[in-house]
């Protein structure tokens, strides 16, 4: 779709929302919108696309009470602003949008979370991505290191980059808009997505990418949309298997879940962001036991998070039930860098190769 067509669609879909309210009001009705309930109780597995999406539960926001009326007013202001932005061919970041609302009196946002959430609502209502509204996240994309060649459309023309030969020690930085990147070719057997910067650097230093023909992706904690989109595209285009390597605690399992199944917050675009074939490599609770890793006791919050995961449909598999219950009975958690206790080479020479061959990848 050309940029002009894209803009036209986005503008029309936004105005349609306002039109619905206008018709409701002229008909004597209270303006309202209905949106899927965005909680874990309302995400369902879609067999066809193999990702988790929002289910049928909907909540209606009607201007009949002050809180929802205010929400609708804010949405009206945002639609008005986005329509103008698209017409004037300008763009802004999510953070800028939050600051722009300063001048909107009652419709001013209290925190950036609120404006981000509202943009996600608009994505759901229009079935478009926020980039279509000329909105950018301000967060950094993650970095890639490994045998991969790609082309990026930059402001100064097209650049072709090899993610081992043409980049520094830190790797290639994924841009916010992954749609401007074209993956050309690769020489990789698998992609390993890593939670912490320390472990990412350890794998580069130990030459893990060269030894195993691996593409290393640094997730930087809970991964940004662009990082997830990037993993999705690589897996989709080249069919390279993806493994996720995180700490061994409940919060890290959620990082894996958002890569593999999509996040609850963005379940409306799981198809673009999730990589359902991604596999969890570790740290598994059974690794803590088997390798006798240095560990900490679970806190009350950890235990609560583990119990919450037992009721999360994304974790409703035998593998996860077994591992989570094991962790609860061990009452322990370990960081991925805990492998350093067995020597700096242990993770790249022993642990990862053993796990990868177990999983049938090497």
């Amino acid at each position, binding site marked *: 779709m050309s940029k002009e067509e894209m803009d036209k669609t986005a503008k029309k879909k*936004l*105005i349609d929302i*306002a*039109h619905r*309210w*206008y018709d409701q*009001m*002229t008909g*004597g*009705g*209270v*303006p309202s919108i209905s949106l899927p309930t965005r909680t874990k109780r309302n995400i369902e597995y879609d067999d066809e696309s193999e990702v988790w999406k929002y289910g049928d539960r909907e909540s209606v926001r009607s*201007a*009949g*009470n*002050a809180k*929802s*009326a*205010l929400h*609708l*007013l804010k949405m*009206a*202001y945002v*639609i*008005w602003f986005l*329509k103008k932005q698209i017409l004037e061919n300008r763009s802004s970041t999510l953070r800028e949008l939050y600051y722009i609302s300063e001048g909107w009196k*009652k*419709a001013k946002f209290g925190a950036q979370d609120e404006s981000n959430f509202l943009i996600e609502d608009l994505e759901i209502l229009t079935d478009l991505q926020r980039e279509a509204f000329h909105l950018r996240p301000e967060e950094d994309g993650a970095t890639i290191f490994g045998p991969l060649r790609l082309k990026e459309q930059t402001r100064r023309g097209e650049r072709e980059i090899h993610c081992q030969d043409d980049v520094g020690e830190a790797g290639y930085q994924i841009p916010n808009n992954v749609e401007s990147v074209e993956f050309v070719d690769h020489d990789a057997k698998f992609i390993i997505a890593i939670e912490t910067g320390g472990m990412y650097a350890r794998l580069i230093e130990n030459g893990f990418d060269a030894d195993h023909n691996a593409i290393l992706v640094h997730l930087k904690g809970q991964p940004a949309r662009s990082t997830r989109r990037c993993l999705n595209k690589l897996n989709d285009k080249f069919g390279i298997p993806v493994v996720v390597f995180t700490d061994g605690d409940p919060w890290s399992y959620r990082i894996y879940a958002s890569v593999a199944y999509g996040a609850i917050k963005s379940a409306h675009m799981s198809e673009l962001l999730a990589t359902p074939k991604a596999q969890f490599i570790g740290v598994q609770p059974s690794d803590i036991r088997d390798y006798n890793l240095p560990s900490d006791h679970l806190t009350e919050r950890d235990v609560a998070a583990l119990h919450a995961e037992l009721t999360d449909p994304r974790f409703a598999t035998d593998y996860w039930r077994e591992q989570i219950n094991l962790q609860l009975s061990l009452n322990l958690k370990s960081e991925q860098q805990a492998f350093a206790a067995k020597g700096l080479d242990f993770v790249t020479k022993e642990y990862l190769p053993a796990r990868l061959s177990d999983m049938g990848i090497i």
Partner: protein
Amino acid sequence: MSLADELAKKQRSISVAEFFEKNKHLLGFDSPVRGIITTVKEAVDNSLDACEEAMVLPDIFIGIKKVSGEVYRIIVEDNGPGIVPDQIPYVFGKLLYGSRFHQIKQSRGQQGIGISAAVLYAQLTTGIPTTVISRTGAATPAWRFEIQIDIESNEPEILRREEAEWDRTHGTRVQIEFRSTLAAKKRLLDYLKYTSIVNPHARIRVEMDDEAFLFERVSDEVIACPEPIQPHPHGIEIGNLKRMIVYSEDSLEDFLVNGFARVGTKTAREMCRLAGLACEMPARNLTPAQQKSLLDAMQQVKVPAPPTTQCLSPIGEALIVQGLEKEIQMDFVSARTRPSSVYSGNPFMVEAAIGYGGKLPPEGNAQILRFANRVPLVYQQGACAITGCIAGINWKTYGISQSGLPIGPLLILVHIASTNVPFTSESKDAVASIPEIEKEVTLALQELGRELKTYLSRRDKSRLQEDRARAVCAIIPEIAAKVAEIVELPPPDISPIEGKIMRKLVTRRETRDGKVAIEVRNYTDQKGAVTLYDISPDTAEDATIRPDFSSRMEQEVTKVWQVPIEPGSVWRVEYTGAGGGSLDIRGIDQKYIVTVDLDV
């Protein structure tokens, strides 16, 4: 000379006055700050008691003025019955002299220590004698006294006694000068404010350092003076029993029957039998050991509870509410007077009130007002059984947060009326913990708590409705304006939406393509029928619902429909015409009506 002889020289009895000079804290004179409050309190208590006995509405004046340096002159003047001249020196110049000590009835002062302690305090700090003026009626002159106390003998010293000019026909005025400070001015005013709350029949005027305050009376009802009753056998102590025996001329049986409440011949004989004493022996011949076994026997025999109504004078629910409302602005206030009850033979009665919201401070602990026999208790709140009861109640049940004491814009008043309020000490600051009294206080507060809860939930409900109304009045018009800007159309008319959300009866007329449509939508919970008046040039001959009445006057046709309404009902009529003219609805409260005329 032996050591014992040596010591004997130093051993001597000390007078009561001397004792209290050394133990000022027992009477509330431990600091100059407190001295002023205690003096005013004692004088005002006396004045109110005197007025009550004389059945007059109290009119009390209090003057506090700095004379020099740290010396303050305190004047308290009332319109009570006055004191006969011969008694004046004893009332003000002798400790432990009073009329109420031996009576069993509810009164403010009890021991006869208070005001003479103030006289003593003045004498010790400034050496200035106390001036008293009193007059007992229009026919008699007023007398003016200057009095001190002989510390050695606890006898009054009269420095001056003379007839005086006084504009009051009856009453008493006392003027005391002592070393003090007005640091506790707010506390003093609070004390008077609280006094006025529980004495709504009193007018109290205050002049303090050239500032004037008035606590006006709200009730013109003279309160009935409680009648004294005889002591109850279960409430008597050995000292009092001895004193009664000394003055008795009766046989033991008659002494018991005549001297105590609820004791008849049968009960008296039972007591004598248990004590192993003859009924006929003269009471005054009892030996100390026999007196003790008599007292024990009196406790063992079952005796009905003493009469409670005549000796107690509760304030009453209506007057407590009036008293509170005149001094403190609140959104909710309710009071409860519990039935009278008895502890250890002493009748008592508990009254309580709860106030919420208004000008009460929204944060911090609830304000607690404690009263005993209509006297505010301002010190030692933490040591008081009333505070204990309040903290012991689970206020969260009534929608009030709590951390020990309840928290929020809450006021709790508790009044204990008794012939003998059990205090923890002589300074009468805190009520002792007596299970019977605590039970009554708790019950009264729980009853009020339930009422408060009902009020709060009703208020929350109406807040919800206000919330809806706010959304309509403030936000929807802005949504409408913004949405119209986005779709580039004129702003929609939102009054029917307002009607829907604010629960009104919305009448709407619209003319389109030569057809007039009138719609009556009922969003209220009202039912019945309303009358619709439609005045326009249209004849409405083809109306889908025929008008109940129609008449032409020159160019205009008045069409009248009876429109039945039910909650949620919609009524609609259509006819051919050009619309315009006027539209009117009658038969329902004006506040429910919203009329939207799209033709005008």
